[in-house]
């Protein structure tokens, strides 16, 4: 097969210049590459240069260098669309290189639904700058006015004559040596030909035929397979290793560095077996809180600071005023990322330099972390992104990278570390537990006069998450908590006269925290949008109507989203819960809405559920989403993201919860951490609002923010039972039903 499935950065690097573009022969193995990986070509990676983002070869093929990576979201295709359109070159002529610290700029980690919004827009700006320069040059060459020029398929022609000159002829293989002009004019909305179209993704055929090379498939000649033997308890010390317990397995070597224990073997199955069978003893360690008292533990954790995320009017006075007071406490369980493919990485030390292949969403950060861990100059570390299994935040990829780097250092050979399922469930950083108190005052006229909220969440932001291998082996690493920007969406956008929302930042949290898809925003929106529903019920008004009432009238896009949602979901205005329900299985519908982080993508959602009042089982049968993320680059890609957000978050909301005893996580596989399976998947109905003249905003996360609250509100509508604790497991549902 020689379909141009995915351009491969390895093949690109095989060439003498970084700008020679080749397409991989799908199915060809890439083992040969690593050895001849040349030192990075002299190419700028600073964000102020056009050459950082773009190269055009003699044949006019365009290479895009993206700091943001495709985590299965389709941004690779979207980037190609944006750039092909901006430059007026055929889509097939554009290929994208991502996340190679030697070649691509540091555009920040791939998170927060920013790949298009920031990453793509920046590259588009580089393309616009390049195009302006190319037109300038063509005008000179063809001796016509710039205004007389028109670009078709990468060829610049003059309207007044039939002369043309191609991009390849103008710049082919050379660098632009241009500063990126943030003011360079981009195309007008009406002129886009590829942007806004559901262009099929570049990587999909290879993924479906098995030809695509994932991180987990990548191989380096001479490499060993490594498996780490994890402590049975967090904080346990390694007291003894009985190497003879694996002596019957051929080719196995036991590696120990402090409390870091691993095996390497040239045969992968032998490494798996050796890790399974190696006898080791560890000290007892019980550092975790009692799972049954998790929320008491969170509430009693020391608060190191308060972040006030909104403060409007005077809630103290407004809460003290006469009126009907509502208060409620919400909590949201600890979640694991749960990629279907456990984390994997390969590292190699050669001539004192470290190369690490990883599916990390932030190779530039990983590079810094590895340099720190091994006390090496940054320039001696190169991290290269290869697509992995879906990545929904800072999961185990960086840790697998550190494992492999440490093993490569010790063994002197390239080492591939493939995490086990238990490694992934037990040792990736977790979405921290979130506890939220909400209070409101309602006056006799049915107005919300005050809204107060306290969010009990760990301190820290998105940064560098401590590397497990470094801590176990006592090597330098970052130790500050990095749960992500979890204060986002704690403030609310509704126009109440008095609002105060405070994030009470906790000193610690039970597990190493990190961001998982829609970090903080999901938890915070869950509480906010459910509590708003509680207010609607208390006022005996329709919950969608209440949202419209308190949306800023000037926010026309928000109101449009809600209006379209009402129509799409055939919403009947009435207060919840519904009256006169009979039978065991009852139906309801709930609404939720968010303007993401108060400044970008709008999402309105309606969930339809069935609740079995005997068993406490909830089924989400249908889910409606209306979505406005500004200019849509690829509607098919946006829809796929929305569907993914809904399904993944239905799973998180109904089922998911990390369990643990005093020593260690006990939900170490899919049997103990079940996720949604096919029979439970809801039908999803989506309406996209395209705004071709607006900025493109992210779509990778916002929908997830509204899912838990829409479901909780629907359950309330069906049964009168209010679910304030994610996940909505049977026992909790039954308890709520009893007090309904």
């Amino acid at each position, binding site marked *: *097969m020689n379909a141009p499935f995915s351009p491969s950065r390895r093949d690109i690097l095989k060439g003498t210049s970084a700008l020679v573009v080749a397409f991989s022969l799908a199915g060809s193995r890439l083992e040969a590459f690593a050895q001849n990986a040349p030192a990075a070509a002299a190419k700028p990676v600073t964000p102020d240069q056009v050459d950082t983002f773009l190269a055009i070869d003699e044949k006019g093929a365009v290479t895009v260098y993206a700091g943001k990576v495709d985590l299965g979201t389709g941004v690779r295709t979207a980037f190609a669309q944006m750039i092909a359109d901006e430059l007026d070159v055929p889509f097939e002529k554009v290929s994208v290189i991502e996340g190679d610290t030697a070649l691509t700029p540091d555009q920040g980690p791939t998170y927060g639904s920013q790949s298009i919004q920031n990453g793509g827009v920046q590259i588009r700006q580089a393309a616009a700058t390049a195009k302006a320069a190319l037109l300038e040059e063509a005008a000179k060459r063809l001796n016509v006015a710039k205004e007389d020029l028109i670009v078709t398929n990468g060829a610049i022609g003059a309207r007044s004559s039939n002369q043309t000159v191609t991009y390849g002829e103008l710049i082919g293989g050379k660098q632009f040596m241009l500063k990126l002009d943030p003011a360079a004019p981009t195309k007008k909305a009406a002129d886009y030909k590829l942007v806004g179209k559901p262009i099929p993704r570049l990587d999909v055929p290879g993924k*479906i035929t098995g030809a695509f090379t994932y991180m987990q*498939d990548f191989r380096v000649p001479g490499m060993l397979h490594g498996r780490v033997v994890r402590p049975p308890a967090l904080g346990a010390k390694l007291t003894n290793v009985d190497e003879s317990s694996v002596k019957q397995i051929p080719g196995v070597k036991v590696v120990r560095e402090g409390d870091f224990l691993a095996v390497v073997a040239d045969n992968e199955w032998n490494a798996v077996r050796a890790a399974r069978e190696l006898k080791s003893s560890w000290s007892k360690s019980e550092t975790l809180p009692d799972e049954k008292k998790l929320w008491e533990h969170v509430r009693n954790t020391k608060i190191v600071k308060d972040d006030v995320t909104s403060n409007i009017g005077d809630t103290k006075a407004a809460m003290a005023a006469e009126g009907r007071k509502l208060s409620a406490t919400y909590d949201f369980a600890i979640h694991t990322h749960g*990629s279907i493919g456990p984390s994997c990485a390969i590292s190699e030390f050669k001539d004192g330099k470290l190369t690490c292949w990883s599916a990390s969403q932030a190779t530039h950060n990983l590079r810094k972390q590895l340099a720190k861990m091994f006390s090496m100059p940054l320039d001696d570390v190169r991290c290269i992104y290869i697509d992995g299994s879906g990545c929904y935040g800072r999961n185990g990829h960086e840790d697998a990278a550190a494992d492999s780097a440490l093993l490569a250092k010790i063994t002197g050979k390239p080492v591939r570390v493939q995490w086990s*399922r238990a490694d992934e469930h037990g040792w990736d950083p977790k979405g921290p537990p979130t506890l939220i108190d909400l209070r409101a005052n309602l006056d006799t006229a049915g107005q919300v006069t005050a809204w107060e909220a306290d969010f009990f969440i760990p301190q820290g932001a998105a940064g560098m998450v401590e590397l497990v291998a470094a801590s176990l082996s006592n090597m330098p690493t970052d130790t500050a908590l990095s749960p992500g920007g979890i204060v986002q969406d704690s403030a609310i956008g509704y126009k109440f006269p008095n609002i105060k929302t405070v994030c009470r930042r906790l000193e610690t949290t039970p597990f190493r925290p990190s961001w998982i898809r829609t970090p903080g925003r999901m938890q915070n929106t869950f509480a906010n949008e459910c509590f708003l529903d509680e207010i609607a019920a208390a006022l005996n008004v329709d919950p969608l109507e209440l949202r419209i009432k308190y949306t800023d009238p000037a926010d026309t896009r928000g109101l449009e989203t809600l209006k379209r949602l009402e129509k799409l979901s055939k919403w009947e205005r009435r207060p919840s819960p519904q009256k006169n329900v009979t039978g065991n299985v009852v139906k309801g519908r709930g609404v939720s809405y968010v303007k993401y982080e108060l400044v970008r993508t709008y999402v309105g959602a309606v969930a339809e559920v069935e609740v079995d009042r005997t068993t406490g089982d909830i089924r989400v049968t249908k889910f409606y989403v209306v979505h406005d993320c500004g200019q849509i680059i690829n509607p098919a890609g946006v829809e796929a993201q929305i569907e993914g957000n809904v*399904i993944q978050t239905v799973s998180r909301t109904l089922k998911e919860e990390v369990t643990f005893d005093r020593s260690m996580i006990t939900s170490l*596989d899919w049997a103990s951490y079940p996720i949604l399976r*096919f029979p439970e*998947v809801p039908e999803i109905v989506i309406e996209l609002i395209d705004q071709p003249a607006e900025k493109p905003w992210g779509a990778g996360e916002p929908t997830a923010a509204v899912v838990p609250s829409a479901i909780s509100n629907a359950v309330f509508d069906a049964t009168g039972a209010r679910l304030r604790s994610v996940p909505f497991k049977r026992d909790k549902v039954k308890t709520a039903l009893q007090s309904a």
Partner: protein
Amino acid sequence: MTITLKVNGKSHEIDTDASTPLLYVLRNDLGLHGPKFGCGLGQCGACTVQVGGRAMFSCIMPIAAIGGREITTVEGLLENGKPNKVQQAFIDEQAAQCGYCIAGMVMRAQSLLQTNPKPTEAEIRQHMRPNLCRCGTHAAILRAVKRAAAA
């Protein structure tokens, strides 16, 4: 120990420990990376291949157990180098996000349509139940299986 395996229509002599699960042999000895490692426990279906015409978890199938049964991986579904009907339906529906689960999904769907060419929605969902997807591609996968059944 040398074991002969018939994979995608070709015979291969494999010299490795007889306890090795088929998945590792396919990926490491034969370079067939379609079948994926997801759990190694028969819980997720990422490793699904056909053995003797039936969809099975290759991660818990030691090669000692295979005997003369023929193995088909997602690579083996190609017809004259082109995606087969099920694969094409997945491509047409763009039924992949990260795609890590997808080769297993294709193999699971293939086995359904071989035995039940016109499945109902409920039958599809039930049949696909052993396979997990974390990206939430289920809706697109269901469309793809229906498309393949209609093709």
